[in-house]
C-alpha cells in the first residue's frame, strides 16, 4: 500500500501535540487540504483508517478528540470504515459508536441496535442508545424499548433519553419502575409526557412538586406535551382536571420558579401551566423572564388569558416598576385588552406615551390601543406627530380606540384629530395609517383626504395614502385616483396602487393594470399581475401567458402561474408541466401548486417527478399538490418516497398526502362503478 501523502501525514503528526492550539491548527489544516486537494480514494481510505486508529488510541485523549472532529468533518464517506471496525471488534468501540451517531444514517440502525442489545460494555451500549435516538426509525424505537428493563441503570437512562427525543409513546405500566428509581426518574417523566394516556396526567402534575429540580423541569414539559396530544384527540380536560386537583400555593410556586428556568422549552411550558392555573401571582416572575425576547410574545398571551383578575396585580406592579422594565410591563398590560381599562393603568400609559423613553412610549401606545377608551383618544391623537415606531404604534392604537369609542366614521373622528391642513411628515404618514385602518369600516369619508395626499411631495405619504385607499371597503372614487397613481414617479407608490386596486376588486381598473404589468419595475409588475389574477378577468389570461413566457423576474412569473392554473386549458396544463423543470425553485413550486387543480394523469406524473428535487420545499409543495389532486395512482410512488425522505417535516407532509389519497381510494372502492381512474380536480 502507498504511504499517506506527505501533506496529510504532516497534519496527522501534530494531532498528538501537547499544545491545544497546535492540535487545532493541524485539524483545520487537514480539513482544508481534504477540501481543496481531495485525496484519491485509496489515500482517503488510508487517511480515514489512520484517523480511526487515532480515535481509539488509548494514550491521548487530545488526539482522540481531534480525530473525532476531523472524521465528523469529512462526513458520511467515513461510514463504511466505521462499520468495518465495529464488525471486526477491537478497542475504542465507544468512540467509534459515538462517531457513527454523528455521521451515520438510517442504514446504520440495525448495527447500532445489535450493539445496544448485546451484552457487553455498558458505555458502548449507552453510546449506541444515544445514536439511535438521533437516527430514529421504528427499529431504533424497538431496540431502545427492549433495554428499558436492562440491569444497568445508566443504560436505562440513556435509552429513556433517546426515546424522549424520538417522542415515543410507552405504556405507563412499563415506565412505573423507571419512575420509582431516582436515577431514571427525570428521563422517565419526559417519556411519560409522550404517552398520550390521560391516566398519567395526575402523576405528572405531582412530579411538578418533586424535590429534584431536573424532574420538575421535565414534568412541566411533559404535562404540556400530554395536554397537546390529548387535545388533538378531543380530550382537552384531563390535564386541566389534574392541575385543578393538585392546585395550591406550593404547586404554583414551583411553576413560577420554572418560568425563570434557563431552558426556553421549560420556560414556555411553565408559562402555559401558570396560564392554565390562571395564576396572577406569577405575573412578576413573567415580567422578569421577558428579558428573553423569545418569551416576550408568549407572556402577552399569558396576560390575555388572565384577563380582569390580573388588573390589581398589574396596577401594583406599575406603581413599583423600575424604568427599564416599563416597556415590557406595558406589553403585558396590552394583553389584557379592554379588561385592562383601569384609570391607574391608563394614566401610567398616557404619561409614558408623552415621556422621553421612545421604547416605553411605543409600548404604551400599543397598550393604549388595546385597553384604552375615549379618554385615550386625545393623547393618542397628539402622539400621531411622533416620528418612528412610537408614532406608528400611536396610529394603529388611535384607529383601534377611535373605532371602538366613536365608530369608524370620518365625521366623528375628524374633530379629535390634529389639524389635517398643512400637516406634514410623521403626522401625515401616521394619519394615512390610521385612516386606512379606520376605513376598513367602509366609511368613504376617509377617501377624500387620502386622495389629496396622493399628490403630496413626500413619497412616504403618497405610498401610505395609496395603501390606505385599498383598505377602504366599498365602491368609491379612490379606484380612479389609484389608477392615476399608477403613473407616479416612485415604483413603491405604483406597486402599492396596484395592490390596492386588486384589494378593491375594481373591474374597471383591468386596462390600467394590464399596462402596469409592463412597468419597468418588477415589483410593480408583480403587484399588477397579482391584482389581475385576483380580479379573475378572462381578458387578462393572454397577458398572463405572455408574462410566464417572457418576463425575466421570477416574482412576476410566480403570480401569473396562479392565474394559469384556473383556465383548465390543455395549453396551460402543458405550460405548467414544463415549468416544473424551471431553474428557479420558487417557479417550480408555483407550477406544482398550480397543477394541483389540473385534470389528467400527465399532471400527476409531472408533480411526482418533483419528489426527487434537491430542495426540501419543492418536495413539500409536490407532496401537498399530490394530496390535493386526489389521483390515487400516485399512492405507490408516494409511499416509496415517504419511506426514504430524509427531511422530517417533508416526511410529515408526505404522510399527510398518503393518508388523503388512501381515504380517497377507500371512498372510490366504496362506490363501485364511479371509479374511472380520472383524478379529481
Amino acid at each position, binding site marked *: 500500500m502507498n504511504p499517506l501523502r506527505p501533506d496529510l501525514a504532516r497534519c496527522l503528526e501534530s494531532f498528538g501535540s501537547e499544545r491545544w492550539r497546535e492540535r487545532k491548527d493541524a485539524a483545520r489544516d487537514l480539513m482544508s487540504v481534504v477540501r481543496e486537494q481531495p485525496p484519491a480514494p485509496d489515500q482517503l481510505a488510508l487517511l480515514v483508517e489512520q484517523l480511526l486508529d487515532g480515535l481509539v488510541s488509548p494514550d491521548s485523549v487530545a488526539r482522540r478528540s481531534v480525530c473525532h472532529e476531523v472524521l465528523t468533518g469529512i462526513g458520511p464517506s467515513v461510514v463504511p470504515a466505521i462499520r468495518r471496525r465495529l464488525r471486526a471488534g477491537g478497542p475504542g468501540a465507544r468512540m467509534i459508536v459515538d462517531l457513527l451517531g454523528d455521521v451515520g444514517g438510517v442504514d446504520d440502525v440495525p448495527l447500532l441496535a445489535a450493539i445496544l442489545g448485546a451484552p457487553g460494555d455498558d458505555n458502548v451500549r449507552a453510546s449506541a442508545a444515544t445514536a439511535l435516538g438521533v437516527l430514529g426509525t421504528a427499529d431504533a424505537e424497538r431496540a431502545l424499548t427492549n433495554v428499558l428493563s436492562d440491569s444497568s441503570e445508566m443504560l436505562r437512562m440513556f435509552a429513556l433519553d433517546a426515546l424522549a427525543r424520538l417522542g415515543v409513546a410507552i405504556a405507563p405500566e412499563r415506565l412505573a419502575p423507571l419512575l420509582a428509581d431516582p436515577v431514571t426518574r427525570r428521563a422517565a417523566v419526559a417519556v411519560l409526557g409522550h404517552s398520550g394516556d390521560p391516566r398519567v396526567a395526575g402523576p405528572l402534575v405531582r412530579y411538578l412538586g418533586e424535590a429534584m429540580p431536573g424532574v420538575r423541569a421535565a414534568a412541566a414539559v411533559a404535562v404540556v406535551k400530554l395536554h397537546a396530544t390529548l387535545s388533538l384527540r378531543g380530550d382537552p380536560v384531563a390535564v386541566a382536571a389534574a392541575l385543578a386537583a393538585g392546585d395550591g400555593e406550593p404547586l404554583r410556586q414551583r411553576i413560577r420558579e420554572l418560568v425563570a428556568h434557563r431552558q426556553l422549552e421549560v420556560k414556555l411550558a411553565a408559562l402555559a401551566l401558570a396560564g392554565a392555573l390562571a395564576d396572577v401571582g406569577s405575573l412578576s416572575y413573567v415580567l422578569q423572564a421577558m428579558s428573553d425576547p*423569545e418569551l416576550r*410574545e*408568549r407572556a402577552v398571551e399569558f396576560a390575555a388569558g388572565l384577563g380582569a383578575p390580573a388588573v390589581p396585580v398589574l396596577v401594583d406592579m406599575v406603581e413599583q416598576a423600575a424604568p427599564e422594565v*416599563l416597556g415590557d410591563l406595558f406589553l403585558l398590560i396590552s394583553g389584557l385588552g379592554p379588561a385592562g381599562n383601569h384609570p391607574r393603568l391608563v394614566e401610567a400609559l398616557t404619561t409614558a406615551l408623552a415621556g422621553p423613553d421612545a*421604547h416605553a412610549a411605543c409600548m404604551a401606545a400599543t397598550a393604549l390601543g388595546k385597553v384604552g377608551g375615549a379618554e385615550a383618544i386625545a393623547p393618542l391623537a397628539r402622539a400621531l406627530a411622533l416620528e418612528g415606531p412610537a408614532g406608528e404604534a400611536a396610529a394603529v392604537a388611535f384607529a383601534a380606540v377611535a373605532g371602538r369609542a366613536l365608530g369608524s366614521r370620518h365625521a366623528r373622528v375628524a374633530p379629535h384629530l390634529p389639524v389635517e391642513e398643512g400637516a406634514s411628515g410623521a403626522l401625515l404618514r401616521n394619519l394615512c395609517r390610521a385612516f386606512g385602518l379606520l376605513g*376598513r369600516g367602509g366609511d368613504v369619508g376617509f377617501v377624500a383626504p387620502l386622495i389629496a395626499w396622493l399628490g403630496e411631495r413626500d413619497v412616504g405619504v403618497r405610498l401610505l395614502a395609496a395603501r390606505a385607499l385599498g383598505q377602504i371597503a366599498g365602491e368609491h372614487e379612490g379606484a380612479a385616483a389609484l389608477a392615476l397613481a399608477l403613473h407616479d414617479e416612485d415604483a413603491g407608490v405604483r406597486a402599492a396602487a396596484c395592490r390596492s386596486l386588486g384589494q378593491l376588486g375594481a373591474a374597471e381598473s383591468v386596462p390600467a393594470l394590464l399596462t402596469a404589468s409592463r412597468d419597468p419595475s418588477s415589483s410593480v409588475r*408583480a403587484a399588477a399581475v397579482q391584482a389581475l389574477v385576483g380580479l379573475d378577468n378572462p381578458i387578462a389570461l393572454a397577458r398572463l401567458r405572455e408574462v410566464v413566457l417572457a418576463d425575466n423576474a421570477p416574482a412576476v412569473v410566480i403570480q401569473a402561474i396562479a392565474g394559469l392554473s384556473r383556465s383548465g386549458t390543455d395549453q396551460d396544463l402543458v405550460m405548467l408541466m414544463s415549468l416544473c423543470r424551471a431553474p428557479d425553485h420558487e417557479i417550480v413550486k408555483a407550477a406544482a401548486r398550480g397543477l394541483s387543480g389540473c385534470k389528467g394523469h400527465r399532471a400527476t406524473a409531472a408533480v411526482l417527478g418533483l419528489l426527487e428535487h434537491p430542495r426540501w*420545499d419543492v418536495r413539500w409543495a409536490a407532496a401537498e399538490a399530490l394530496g390535493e389532486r386526489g389521483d390515487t395512482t400516485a399512492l405507490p410512488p408516494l409511499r416509496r418516497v415517504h419511506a426514504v425522505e430524509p427531511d422530517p417535516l417533508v416526511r410529515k407532509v408526505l404522510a399527510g398526502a398518503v393518508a388523503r389519497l388512501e381515504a380517497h381510494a377507500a371512498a372510490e372502492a366504496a362506490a363501485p362503478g364511479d371509479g374511472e381512474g380520472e383524478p379529481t380536480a
Partner: protein
Amino acid sequence: MNGRLPPGGIEPPVRVRITPEESRLLAELILDYCGVLLGGDAGFLLERRLASRLDHLSLGSYLEYYHYLSYDLGGPAELLECIERVTTHETYLFREQFQLDAFQREILPVLLGRRGAGAPVVWSAGCSTGEEAYTIAALLTETARPGSRVIGSDISVRGVRAAEAGIYGPSSFRTTPEDRRERYFEPLPGGQWRAIEPLRRMCTFVHLNLLDTARYRELGAIDTIFCRNVLMYLSNQARRRVVEGFYDALVPGGYLLLGHSESLISVPGRFDLVNLSNDLVYRKPG
C-alpha cells in the same frame, strides 16, 4: 367590488397565520444572511415580529413576503428591516460590570504596557444602539492614552443611527453609577441624556453584518473585541466563521471578550483562554 363591513368598531389588522413551510423558508433566509439561528419557536416569533411588515407591504401571506425578500428590488432593503425586527436590540450602559472591570484593570494595562504600543482600538461587535461602545469609550478615557478609539458595528441600520446620535433614556442608565452619568453624558430636555462630545469623537459606528468577514479589514487592526451576547444567537457554522474573522482582525496578543453565558467551546478556534481574576477571556497568541 368587495364590501367588508365589520359589525362594530375596527380592531388592528387581522393577523395572517404563518405556515410551517413559510416559517422555515424565512428562518433559512435569515440564517443565510446573518447566521442568526431561530429556535423551534421560529414561526411564532416571525409571525409576531413580521405581521406589520405584511400589512405595510400589502402582502397576503408570508410566502409572498418571502418572494418579496427573494426577488423584489426592494428585497435587500426589506431583508434589513426583517432582520431589525427579528434580532434583539436589548442593551444598556455599563452592563456586566465585572467584565468591564477586568477590561479596565487587567487588559488595558497589558495593552498599554507593550513595547511601542499606541492608543488602543476597541471594537464593539454587535453594538446595537451604542451603549456598550460609549461605556468602553468612558473606560478608555479614564485609563488609556489620548487617541484611543472605539468602533461600534451592528447589523441594524437603525441601531447604528441611534448609536451615532448617542442619546439615551433612563432605561439605558439602569446600572450606570450616577457620577459616571454626570461625567460622560449631558442632560437634554425631556429626561434624556447625550454622550458628551469628546466621547462621541472617540466612537465610530458602522453598519456591518458579522458574517461579512471580508469587511473586517476595513476596521483596521483591533486590540480588543467585545462581542457580548451575539454569538449565542448564531448557528455553529456562522459562529465559527465570525470567530475566525475576529482572530484575523485582532493584533497578536489582542483580546476577545464574550458574554458571560457564551464560550468558544463549540467553536474550533485558535485563541488562548486567559484566566483573569474575575473573568475568563480569549487572547490571540503572540
